[in-house]
């Protein structure tokens, strides 16, 4: 059975996530979009595993999920800290590391 539909769905999800990262100002929403991109890549891996009949893709999907979890921990910690000092969750506000 063709996995084209799944791959197309994964591509669409990835694009939506990418657009969200680039276009949304709220830090939480940007994070959400990153999660969406990770899930899109997970979907692509699972589809490939199913297509070739190996387990490699499934294992990689597990890896991705673990990495996503760890990343969320660190990322949310940063956002909470920034919010505490600045009272704002906008990514545009923190632009001090510039020339």
């Amino acid at each position, binding site marked *: 059975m063709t996995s084209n539909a799944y791959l197309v769905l994964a591509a669409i999800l990835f694009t939506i996530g*990418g657009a969200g*990262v*680039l276009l949304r100002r709220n830090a939480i929403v940007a994070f959400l979009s990153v999660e969406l991109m990770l899930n899109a890549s997970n979907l692509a891996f699972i589809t490939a595993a199913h297509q070739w009949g190996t387990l490699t893709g499934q294992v990689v999907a597990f890896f991705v999920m673990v990495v996503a979890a760890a990343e969320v921990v660190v990322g949310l910690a940063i956002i909470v800290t920034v919010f505490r000092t600045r009272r704002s969750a906008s*990514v*545009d506000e*923190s*632009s*001090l*590391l*510039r*020339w």
Partner: protein
Amino acid sequence: MTAMLAHAANVSQTVPATGGFTLMWLLPALPALGAAVLLLSGRYSEKWGHWFAVFMAFASFGVGTYLFFDMLGKPSDGRSFTQHIYTWISSGTFHVDFAFRLDQLSMTFVLLVTGVGSLIHLYSVGYMAHDERRKRFFAYINLFVAAMLLLVLADNYLLLYVGWEGVGLASYLLVGFWQERPAAGVAAKKAFVVNRVGDFGLSLAIMLMFVTFGTVSFSGIDAGASHASNNAVTGIGLLLLLAACGKSAQVPLQSWILDAMEGPTPVSALIHAATMVTAGVYLIVRSNALFTLSGTARDFVIAVGIITLLFGAAIGLAKDDIKKALAGSTMSQIGYMILGAGLGPSGYAFAIFMLLMHGFYKATMFLGAGSVMHGMNDELDMRRFGGLYKFMKITSLGFIAGYLAIIGIPPFDGFFSKDKIIEVAFGQSWFVGIAAMFGAMLTAFYMTRMVAMTFFGEARWKDDAHPHESPAVMTVPIAILGVLSLVAGALLSINSAFVNWLTPVVGFSEPHLPVSSTAISITNVVLVVLTAVWAWFQYARRPVPVIAPDHVTPFTVAARNNLYGDTFNEATFMRPGQYLTRSLVWFDNRVIDGAVNGSAAIVGGSSGRLRRWQSGYVRSYALSIVVGTALVVAALLLVRI
């Protein structure tokens, strides 16, 4: 004075030194030790340093005299000794030894340099008595004597070159001795730089010698000269002539000697009259094997000699500064020696004879001039002298002895030496002979002018002048050299003693004279006496203006400007050189520094533009990542396809 042999070739074989001759290394070593001790001992030797130097000079003279008498006891073809000190360069086929050669020619120079040098050392004790850096002066003149002895005792051209450079260094140090005077420093630099041009000729000559003969030692070249190609021999001869021009202040490298009078008078007497400037003549006579074979080289030597003897005489005629007039005279007299050397085997011995005689009478006159200056508050202008005979008897008599010798009055030194060269010149051609005789007349004129203006006539002194005789330590050397100026020529010409002494080294051949030598001699003496009498009436009987007259002929103007020698050098060499260096500096600043600074500016500018990328906005960084990823993926896809 008839010669004993119509023609004699150089016959001496050089043998290693034995017996007393093994002491020949002491000759340069003693003054070198004196120089080293004086320079290194600092304040410790202030009290006795100058006497130590005088002692070293006299000690070297003593060794030289001992070796001379030892040499007289040997047969005339067995008087040439070498002493090998160590092997200096031994590289493949190039082999040069640090070795000395003592034969009749170098013996003559040894006695001249150490003898006259010792007397001048003694004189300097008095002349430099009030100078606080006197010890350094003595160190330098000892160094000079050591270097000059190295030059004349060297067994090969490379070691001669070491001595050559050494005397140039000593000349630089001594001309610029009074460092607080900018003019002295400039004169010293000029002397060194002009000498360098001649040294360039000598180094090229040595290289050419090695290529042609495979060796640079005198014995090797004497042996191989007849087998070498004429072009090589002529080339070497011309390069050696260039070297001689530099050291002996001959045209075209004559401009330094007039400025070198900035140095103390003993320096002028020793270096620029008796010894260093004669090194060029020594070089040519030592290379007689080459010059005898090459008529072209000899013609150039004769031309240089004639031009310079007239050039120097012209300058000497118009100078009012006593030392500059004597310097012009030296230039002219050395022109005679160079002329003698260029006349080939008939002239070599007379050139050296004149060199020896000139050493005596010119040193007398320079020391006398120094004594006059000492008694007249260091006044140099002859227009401010006059009537000094009564106040400085010994100085005057010594100076007059030198004067009679230089103009060639029989039976004094000049008659037996310079007049001989004029006779042999007639053997070359009428033109050369007449030019040489005309030069003798000019010599008589300017020397009489000098003597008349300084010692006779009316006193034209400045108000603060108290002329007095100099102390004995200065007048004794003048007296000794004055006596030598009068008698040495006659004594050494008995039975052609001096010519026979030198013949085994330089050869001799009788010149073919168009008229008898007696006729030439008599004509010369008569013309000289007439010119001297005329000059006497001009300068001793008529009042001499204290300020130099302005309405003078163009010749006088030219002679006062050193016959535009400096102007020519400036226009031909200095200004183009200056433009070249300035344009190179401009090029270095604008182009090379511009390239380096420009590339730095480019990097700085572009980095200034690039850093605006760091905007601080997270989203723009994210966009950069996306664009980069897209490019990588596109590249991957393109490669796959």
